[in-house]
């Protein structure tokens, strides 16, 4: 069949959770060319940052992305702290690390589920998202929110971790560790998974370097790039770190890297909980930040986040530039898609764990229109959601989810 068909994947498509447009030209079922179109989510965040004070920007930056919100705010805070010339306490740095690794846990589990869904393996989606709930609960416990935890502040962190919270975290980690062992086993030995993921979306070591791939995508091509090791920001200099790489250079390799990184993150959180130093949570940072510019990097679950902040001596930044991990990985996607089957397009796109909002650096908030001032604490919110569904005939209490007994 020589006739070429051009099909648009997106901006509205069930396999894309956010708007992006991939114009795929097909020859039969084979992809001959792919054009990536993003930009649907541009909401002018960088401009908005220039009109707000640093502390307001911090909350704005946290909303660049729903999944990797903590790394973005960490990067921004680091930049402002470097400009102001303050050093945060070790305890605050450790808490930042704990949150960042919890975030990585939940992001990777989320990715695993999405990947399962993209290849029509919904069971994997249900399993990994069930486990991800535990991580989200832990994040809610520590930060008060399931996403956008708001734990960072310029000069430190806002909330402490109490010993009882540490214990709850540990029990959550034990659960995730057991589950992740199962996922690793599944990823390495399940035959349909290997048949669907192996050999597609190839990105060689040279191409990964040339196209500037970051994060798990680069590591799955054998490039040992990890900003946590390179920059040793926050408290990572004290942590025993192992960079997970894989030589498969395909979607399968990316899956393996991610499930193994879950294990690595669990180790890091355990280490942080064991060695949590004492100290102040926050040091004071002046409202006016002296003139200067700084480039701050963090390792988000999806790869390298770069924040550039330039100050001009006032309480508002002169320029904020955010480069999220997905933005760096788009260049690889078009390359990876070519020559593969249409059936593999969604999983290849999903394999970089794309985040369109991150790429387009989004959000303009309009506070004036929010008339709702109801503040609910976590338990009240949970009760509200249970009641909400019970009124509609669905009683969540009737579901018995076994703690460790899982149907396999």
């Amino acid at each position, binding site marked *: 069949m020589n006739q070429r*068909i*051009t*099909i*648009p994947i997106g901006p509205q*498509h*069930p*396999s894309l959770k956010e708007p992006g447009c991939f114009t795929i030209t*097909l020859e039969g*079922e084979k992809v001959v060319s792919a054009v990536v179109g993003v930009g649907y989510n541009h909401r002018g965040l960088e401009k908005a940052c220039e009109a707000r004070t640093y502390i307001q920007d911090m909350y704005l930056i946290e909303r660049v992305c729903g999944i990797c919100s903590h790394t973005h705010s960490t990067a921004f805070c680091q930049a402002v702290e470097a400009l102001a010339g303050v050093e945060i306490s070790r305890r605050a740095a450790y808490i930042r690390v704990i949150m960042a690794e919890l975030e990585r846990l939940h992001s990777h589990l989320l990715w695993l589920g999405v990947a*399962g*869904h*993209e*290849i*029509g*393996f*919904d*069971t*994997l989606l*249900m*399993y990994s998202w*069930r486990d991800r709930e535990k991580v989200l609960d832990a994040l809610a416990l520590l930060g008060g929110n399931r996403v956008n935890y708001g734990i960072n502040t310029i000069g430190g962190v806002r909330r402490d971790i109490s010993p009882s919270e540490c214990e709850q975290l540990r029990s959550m980690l034990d659960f995730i560790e057991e589950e992740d062992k199962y996922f690793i086993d599944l990823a390495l030995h399940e035959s*349909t*998974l290997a*048949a*669907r993921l192996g050999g597609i979306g190839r990105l060689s070591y040279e191409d990964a370097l040339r196209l500037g791939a970051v994060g798990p995508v680069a590591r799955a091509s054998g490039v040992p790039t990890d900003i946590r090791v390179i920059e040793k920001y926050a408290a990572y200099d004290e942590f025993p770190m192992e960079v997970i790489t894989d030589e498969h250079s395909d979607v399968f390799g990316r899956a393996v890297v991610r499930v193994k990184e879950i294990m690595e993150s669990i180790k890091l959180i355990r280490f942080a909980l064991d060695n949590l130093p004492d100290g102040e949570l926050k040091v004071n940072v002046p409202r006016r930040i002296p003139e200067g510019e700084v480039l701050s990097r963090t390792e988000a679950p999806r790869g390298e986040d770069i924040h550039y902040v330039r100050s001009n001596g006032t309480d508002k930044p002169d320029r904020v530039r955010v480069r999220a991990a997905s933005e760096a990985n788009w260049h690889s996607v078009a390359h990876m898609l070519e020559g593969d*089957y*249409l*059936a*593999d*397009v*969604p*999983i290849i796109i999903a394999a970089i764990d794309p985040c369109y909002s991150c790429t387009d650096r989004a959000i303009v908030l309009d506070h004036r229109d929010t008339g709702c001032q109801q503040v609910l604490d976590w338990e009240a919110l949970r009760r509200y959601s249970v009641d909400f569904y019970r009124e509609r005939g669905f009683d969540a209490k*009737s*579901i018995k*989810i076994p703690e460790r007994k*899982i*149907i396999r």
Partner: protein
Amino acid sequence: MLAALFHILIFPGLLFLMAYSLFFDFVDRKIYARLQNRTGPRWYQPLADFLKLLGKETIIPDHAAKKIFTFLPIVSMAAIAAAYLYIPLFLPESLYPFDGDLIVVLYLLTIPTVCFFLAGWFSTSVFATIGAVRTLTQLFSYEVPLFMALLAPALLADTWSLSGITAYYSQHPFYLLLNIPAFLVAIIACQGKLDRVPFDLSEAETELASGTFVEYSGRYYAIFRLAIDCELVVVSSLIAAVYLPMHSDSLLLGIVIYVLETLLILFILALIRTIMARIRIEQMVVLCWKYLTPIALLQIIANLLLKGVL
């Protein structure tokens, strides 16, 4: 005349088929959900979905061939309902048995697949067109092993009628064990017919939105969905009739046996759906032609040889 109408339209014909298919859909979804640690739907959920779809706005694309577009759901539903009449369900004989009804049932079951292809083709949307092409590719890969696997037991029984198969295997129940390879081939191949994971390529939500049916909405889509549910019942019944022909002369006992048999097959199908990922179209073609077809062919040869011996 009245009795015939009753049989065709109400029991065990159209109405029973529809009701049972909705129940079947519920069981399928429930098993699927429970295997995934979810709660699953209530028993009336398939009916609620069906009624809701009936009430939705029906949109027909401008470029679509309207007559065919609206006609196809009904044709596929009719073909499936007709096939159901020729399968022995509760009693050893079907409603209108004749020699060769097995072949007729198989061909009637091909009509819905062709309808799905035409539905996708005449929708004139790119997603639907690709889904339609995939439907045909799929048809060419699973149809041969499925036919051969279903004909092998008939060859051993030396009859082309489903009632004859039932009668033969009632006399020699142990010969059923000879057909186990064909049974496995049929179970795998019928997933392609039923558009279920791992062979749901023509629908493939994440790639093609919903493939062939992407332009269908409202009541036409509702009828298509119902036809797909009914197809599940008919194929399960057919497999039960060919490979597990255990019928009783008492109607009540017959119904119990029938329900148990079909639910067993449904459970196997749901299990496969749970533990598998969707495979690619070329992987499916390879699987069907490289593995399933030779196994089915061997079964036929073995059955022909055995017939001489037995």
